[in-house]
């Protein structure tokens, strides 16, 4: 689905990612795990276009996007749920969702999609008139994911979805991620520090350290073991 | 004695100002010498005119140390310039000419007091930086509006008629001594006075900017919060700098009124407030040297354009400002200075590489 080749990027002249290559398979949950500062968020921001590439290419389904601006990449099929959720605080839930529709004006099965989304996150209908800024972290996460889904993305990017959210809600989020993959066949990339979440949802996990991928493990290698924790302790 | 001299030079050098090598100071000394010798060979009219052009540099420096060094964008310096001229005018008209220096001191002191009050309102009132620009602009407009309404014989202080929008006339020039032993500062003596004062102020600013106080000014510009967290009261830093800048502008205003024998509200109008911004932006806001050069040059150009039919001068300056903002955000003179430094540095490195001490061949 998404192919990144030989990516070097960062902030200004500081390089964070070094010659990184990554392939995200369709219909699976790919995880990027690493400590603080390893470059997880930078990776996602680079895919979205917030961080300019020093070198390398990115393509979705074969079409290269590294020259496109962020808005164009979103329209090419990237659904973005940033670290910290970034709900528009003064817009209502309904308006936040509407913003998600900017991505494409014709989504073939819009009504069906909306039904699915509302079924998955009933809160979106219950609190449609509530201002985004007044909601709790977990509620905002639902709105942020719903907002990204409304555009019928090809690839959903989740940056640290469990950050700042109480543990019971994190469990719900894990369920949602699995359901999105299984019922909607969505391709998902999750960047996380929370290893438990990764072990629950991920099919493939890449370990990131200092801007490089130091290990790639398949589900059978890390589920039920502490292989991931060991790689992170390095 | 020699070491005291070197200490003195060291105090004048630092990262806040351009040029610190012995070559620089030799050139500086030569320029100063030429400046002081010029009136001897120049003809009266040109000397007088050039002296007048140098007066504007005080206004430019005033804006520069606030904007470039402390991060305070103030439109108000023009008002202080003009008001100082008015105070000087009022006092000097009312007292015998041999005491005109007293009038000058009054002008400067009163304006410094005014800038203290205004600065207090601004900095201790927590007005944010963009609003400072607008607030000071409005103050300047207010001063101009109020003074324009003072036409009519009832608007007088002592024997000084304020004159409304036509301004105050009959302001005597600065003078020391009386009768036959008086030095009246016009033409060549005026030039020497301005040149001497300018050199003094310039060196004084170099000393200030490269001292601890200078570091605080730049720190306040760069990151006010962090400076505060280090325990410095940035309001005091800003206020003190504001008062100093007010004093320098006032000095310029007094000299202006003395040379012109006249001061009017138009010296504080929108156009008058625009020009110092252009001098500083075009020169290089963070360099007193760049501002000195650009102010003199641009005011000279302004004069030349005025002779040719002044309609194009405003357009010229506006285009200059636009080009500066879009193409030379550091300022034109500063960009040239930086290019020059880079060139000299490369030559120095190239010469070092050829030195046998470092294994090269001559």
């Amino acid at each position, binding site marked *: 689905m998404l192919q990144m080749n030989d990516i070097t990027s960062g902030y200004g002249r500081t390089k964070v990612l070094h010659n990184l290559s990554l392939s995200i398979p369709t219909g699976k949950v790919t995880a990027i795990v690493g400590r603080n500062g390893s470059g997880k968020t930078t990776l996602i921001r680079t895919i979205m276009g917030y961080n300019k590439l020093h070198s390398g290419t990115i393509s979705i389904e074969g079409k290269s996007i590294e020259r496109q*601006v962020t*808005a164009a990449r979103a329209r090419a099929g990237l659904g973005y749920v*940033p670290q910290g959720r970034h709900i528009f605080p003064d817009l209502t839930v309904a308006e936040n969702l509407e913003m998600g529709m*900017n991505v494409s004006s014709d989504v073939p099965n819009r009504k069906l999609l909306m039904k699915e989304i509302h079924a998955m996150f009933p809160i979106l209908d219950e609190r449609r008139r509530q201002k985004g800024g007044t909601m709790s972290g977990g509620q905002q996460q639902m709105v942020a994911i719903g907002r990204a889904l409304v555009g019928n993305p090809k690839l959903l990017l989740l940056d640290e979805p469990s950050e700042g959210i109480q543990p019971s809600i994190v469990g719900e989020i894990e369920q949602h991620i699995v359901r999105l993959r299984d019922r909607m066949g969505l391709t998902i990339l999750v960047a996380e520090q929370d290893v438990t979440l990764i072990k629950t949802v991920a099919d493939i996990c890449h370990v990131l350290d200092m801007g490089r991928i130091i290990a790639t493990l398949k589900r059978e290698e890390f589920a039920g073991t502490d292989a991931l924790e060991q790689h992170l302790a390095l | 004695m020699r070491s005291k001299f070197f200490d003195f030079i060291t105090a004048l050098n630092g990262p806040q100002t351009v040029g610190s090598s012995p070559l620089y100071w030799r050139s500086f000394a030569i320029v100063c010498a030429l400046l002081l010798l010029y009136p001897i060979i120049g003809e009266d009219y040109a000397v007088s005119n050039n002296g007048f052009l140098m007066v504007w540099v005080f206004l430019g420096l005033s804006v520069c140390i606030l904007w470039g060094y402390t991060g305070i964008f103030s439109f108000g310096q023009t008002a202080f310039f003009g008001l100082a001229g008015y105070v000087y005018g009022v006092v000097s008209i009312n007292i015998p000419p041999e005491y005109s220096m007293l009038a000058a001191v009054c002008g400067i002191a009163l304006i410094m007091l005014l800038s203290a009050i205004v600065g207090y309102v601004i900095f201790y009132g927590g007005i944010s930086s963009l609003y400072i620009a*607008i607030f000071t602009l409005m103050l300047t*407009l207010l001063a101009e*509006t109020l003074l324009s309404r003072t036409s009519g014989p009832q608007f007088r202080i002592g024997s000084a008629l304020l004159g409304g929008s036509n301004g105050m006339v009959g302001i005597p020039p600065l003078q020391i001594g009386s009768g036959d032993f008086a030095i009246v500062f016009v033409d060549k003596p005026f030039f020497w006075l301005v040149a001497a004062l300018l050199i003094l102020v310039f060196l004084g600013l170099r000393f200030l900017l490269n001292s601890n106080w200078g570091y605080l000014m730049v720190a306040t510009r760069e990151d006010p919060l962090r400076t505060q967290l280090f325990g410095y009261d940035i309001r005091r830093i800003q206020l003190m700098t504001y008062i100093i800048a007010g004093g320098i502008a006032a000095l310029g205003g007094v000299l202006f009124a003395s040379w012109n024998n006249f001061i009017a509200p138009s010296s504080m109008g929108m156009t008058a407030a625009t020009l110092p911004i252009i001098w500083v*932006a075009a020169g290089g806001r963070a360099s007193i040297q760049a501002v000195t050069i650009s102010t003199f040059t641009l005011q000279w150009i302004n004069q030349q354009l005025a002779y040719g039919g002044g309609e194009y001068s405003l*357009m010229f300056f506006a285009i200059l400002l*636009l080009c500066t903002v879009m193409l030379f955000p550091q300022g034109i003179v500063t960009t040239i200075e930086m290019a020059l430094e880079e060139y000299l540095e490369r030559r120095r490195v190239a010469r070092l590489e050829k030195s046998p001490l470092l294994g090269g061949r001559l």
Partner: protein
Amino acid sequence: MFGLFYQILATFSFLVLSTTGLAIIFGVMNIINFAHASFIMLGAVVTVYLVSAANLSVFLAIPLAALIAAAVGAFLEMTLIRRLYNRKLDCLLATWAINIIIVQAVFLWLGTSQPGIDQPFGSFTVGDAAYNYYELFLFGCAALVLVAVFLLFRFTRFGLNVRAAMQNRDMAEGLGTNTTAMYLKTFALGAGLAGLTGALYAPLMPVSPYFGDRFLWRAFTVLIVGGADPLIGPLMSSVALGSVYGGLTWLWDSVAGSIGILLITMIFIRVLPQGFTGLWDILRAKK
């Protein structure tokens, strides 16, 4: 008494029309557009030429002039302004320079005074003073502008995008909103409203290259006293300052009114820097 009411109404219209374009640009892009004065002037100049030279009806000339001003604004945004969004002070200086350039260009090309045009409606008397119907028309226009801006921001997709981008531009981009095009349209809208103002006031005042100046600094005062909201700001601030100016002008003269506005603005900067918008936010939060 009617005189006072009329004066306040007239001032309110003047302030709303002067400011809304400026306030929209400031509220959305957070920049101060000094070229606002030149857009107003262009609107007035184009109108008087369309009416006197091309013999157009004034009611046709006014919207055309507004469109031309919008086009000029769009051109400037594309070439210059958009590079300066992150450099607020430089943007202020650049727009100031542009203002002078446009004004001087008109001055050099067309001279100082421009043809005058007449007011389309007549006058009426109350007591022993004469008043213009045109001022009432202008009040209607001001009210219309406010309603239109409200509808635009609340009920259109463009308005939604703008409000979202005001809160978080990066996130709006991440959801596929082309904020660059949006800023272009917003700037053009602000310029167009300024041009409309100039066009509307052309029949009332002598038109010269410096036409925009008297609008500009008053618009700034309204902007500061009003705060960042493009609707609440001009509305509440125009009411307040309009009353002050109208009252002082009626009591003494227009210079007293101007001084009054300047003083109140300076007080607001010091005491209530967020303006009426800030006050409104506080009141809403308390509910």
